[in-house]
């Protein structure tokens, strides 16, 4: 039996490479100064979905919510073997916390006929691990979090092994189900050269528009400026060309999703930021110790005197 998998992915700033430039004086993070990457555990979720497809046939659809630039992780998913990709982008999504995000994603996932929804365990920018379970609740389906291994799929049921910290649990449930996948689950495959050749030109409608408009701006001065209508028809034409080749990445907004705006963005987010501070860790008093026998012996003496060493 073939399985329909929907994988939710996120483009994140590479928080392991934060340098001084990425931090502003007021302690906020300048996201644009950081390289944007495919959230690592989302790659494990995608890999698990692709393995299911390899073994049982079916379809893998990837969905992300974010700005136009997030289309990069959708293309990357297509390079690795995903069949379809959807970008949810809308200014009204801005300031969504995990609850609002899970609501918006649930509106999108409900548009599909699905057997398995997969997410990475958590994203490295927030480390919350909340959107997966929140989404499962909104979809009204069971969740298996911290999945380390898929053990069995038999058409109706799924059996998986999940981590419980020091140890594991083997869990079975009926489909449909939502899984959150850990980094221990698999080694994500790399992009396939053929697919890369095919999908490197894949674009969302928003990207097409941006490319056409910036092209127009560059051409100014040499040619007469085209009217807005001309630009629009050019965009439409390019989009339909891409669509014919199967290279148009679907772009959905909240209106298309039929989302209730009360539950999106700021108004849909109960949590708010009160304050952001940069981390300045410093010992109150510190001493330099010479690495000599005497220096070390003196330090040990001091630690014994103040009862640090019993």
């Amino acid at each position, binding site marked *: 039996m073939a399985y329909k998998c929907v994988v939710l992915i996120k483009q994140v*700033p590479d*928080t*392991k490479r*934060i340098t001084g430039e990425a*931090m502003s004086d007021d302690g906020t*993070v300048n996201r644009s100064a950081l390289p944007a990457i495919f959230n690592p555990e989302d790659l494990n979720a995608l890999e698990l979905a692709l393995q299911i497809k390899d073994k049982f046939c079916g379809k893998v659809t990837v969905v992300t919510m974010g700005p136009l630039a997030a289309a990069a992780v959708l293309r990357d998913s297509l390079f690795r073997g995903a069949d379809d990709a959807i970008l949810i982008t809308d200014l009204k999504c801005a300031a969504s*916390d995990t*609850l609002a995000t899970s609501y918006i994603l649930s509106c999108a996932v409900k548009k599909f006929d699905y057997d398995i929804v997969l997410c990475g365990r958590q994203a490295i920018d*927030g*480390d*919350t691990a*909340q959107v997966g*379970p*929140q989404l499962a*609740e*909104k979809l009204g389906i*069971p*969740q*298996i*979090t*911290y999945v380390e291994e898929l053990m069995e799929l038999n058409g109706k049921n799924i059996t998986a092994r999940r981590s*419980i*910290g*020091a*140890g*594991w*649990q083997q*869990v*079975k*449930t*009926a489909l449909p189900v939502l899984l959150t996948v850990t980094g221990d689950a698999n080694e994500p495959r790399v992009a396939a050269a053929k697919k890369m050749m095919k999908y490197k030109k894949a674009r969302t409608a928003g990207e097409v528009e941006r490319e056409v408009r910036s092209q127009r701006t560059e051409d100014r001065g040499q040619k007469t400026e085209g009217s807005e209508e001309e630009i629009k028809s050019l965009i439409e034409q390019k989009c339909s060309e891409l669509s014919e080749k199967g290279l148009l990445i679907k772009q959905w907004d909240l209106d298309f999703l039929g989302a209730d705006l009360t*539950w999106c963005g700021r108004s849909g987010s*109960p*949590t708010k*930021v*009160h*304050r*952001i*501070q*940069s*981390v300045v*860790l*410093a*010992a109150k008093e*510190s*001493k*330099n*110790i*010479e*690495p*000599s*026998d005497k*220096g*070390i*012996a003196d*330090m*040990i003496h001091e*630690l014994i005197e103040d009862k*640090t060493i*019993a």
Partner: protein
Amino acid sequence: MIRVNKQGEVWVFGEQHRGRLEDTPIELMSKGRRLADTLGVKLATVVLGNGVGDLATKLIHYGADKVYVAEHPLLGTYQTNSYAKVMFDLIHKYEPQIVLYGATITGRDLAPRIASAAKAGLTADCTDLQIGDHRTQDDKLHKNLMFQIRPAFGGNIIATIINYDRWPQMATVREGVMPPPEPDVTRRGEVITEKVQLTQQDLPLEILAEHKRPKKVNLKTARIIIAGGAGVGSRENFKLIWDLANCLGAAPAASRAAVDLGFIDKDHQVGQTGTTVRPVLYIAVGISGAIQHQAGMSQSQKIVAINNDPEAPIFQVAHYKIVGDLNVVVPRMIKGIKEKK
């Protein structure tokens, strides 16, 4: 949705497995006590399970004014849906203003499910909680909110999160960051038994097997920790860490880099993705001290850092800085300690 109310209690989820209380609810009792006292409300713990009533006394000794006990044969083993349903019903019935969970695997599986059903806010992995006021941009003052303080962006920033327009205020709290209170066996409190209605429908999962292995080391309770990093160089050379730990009766630990390199088992990992520790003495050997590592150990009372790079960030948090070759310094320390003893 629960209306904002200032009389609501402070709740701690009393995570237990097979009748054994986890460390996190106890760790949360001292902070929970402080929040409840500041707000002038009661501190309550909620225990779900089957045959877990005797945990109530213990929780009262640790500081709870009230313990809600919800028992049912179908609550014998933790499952997301059944536990979320019971918690959701109790939250609706009693309208607590604050609900805290340990950021354990169970807490992180359960709390978001409840938050989604209750359409309430939830902040993950807090390292501190305080009560404070917040003024919104339209100059409205919200008094006595729970400040939910947590590292974000891989530990590079500390965010204070609040919610003021929807209750309850919920947070999961990192394991090991809050010291457990001393129990007081003379404390008395109220035990409230809750009727629970569940059917097999509320248990979509079948737990086929479970294997719990004891952790190889308990870093959370260690008085002294000796941690090695990538600078130690090899699994063989990690013997230096074990030797130093042995002669101090300390627990051996490691940075993520050392674990990833296979020098030692993951149970020994300290930091953002490992264990958070606050020992009396922390000796960091060959650890550069990435912010993710510091997040897990900077609250140690005394920190000794040994590194050959004088610019290593670990020195920013160290009380004793030793710039030198660990292969020379560590044997000298072992010798020095043996002589003193």
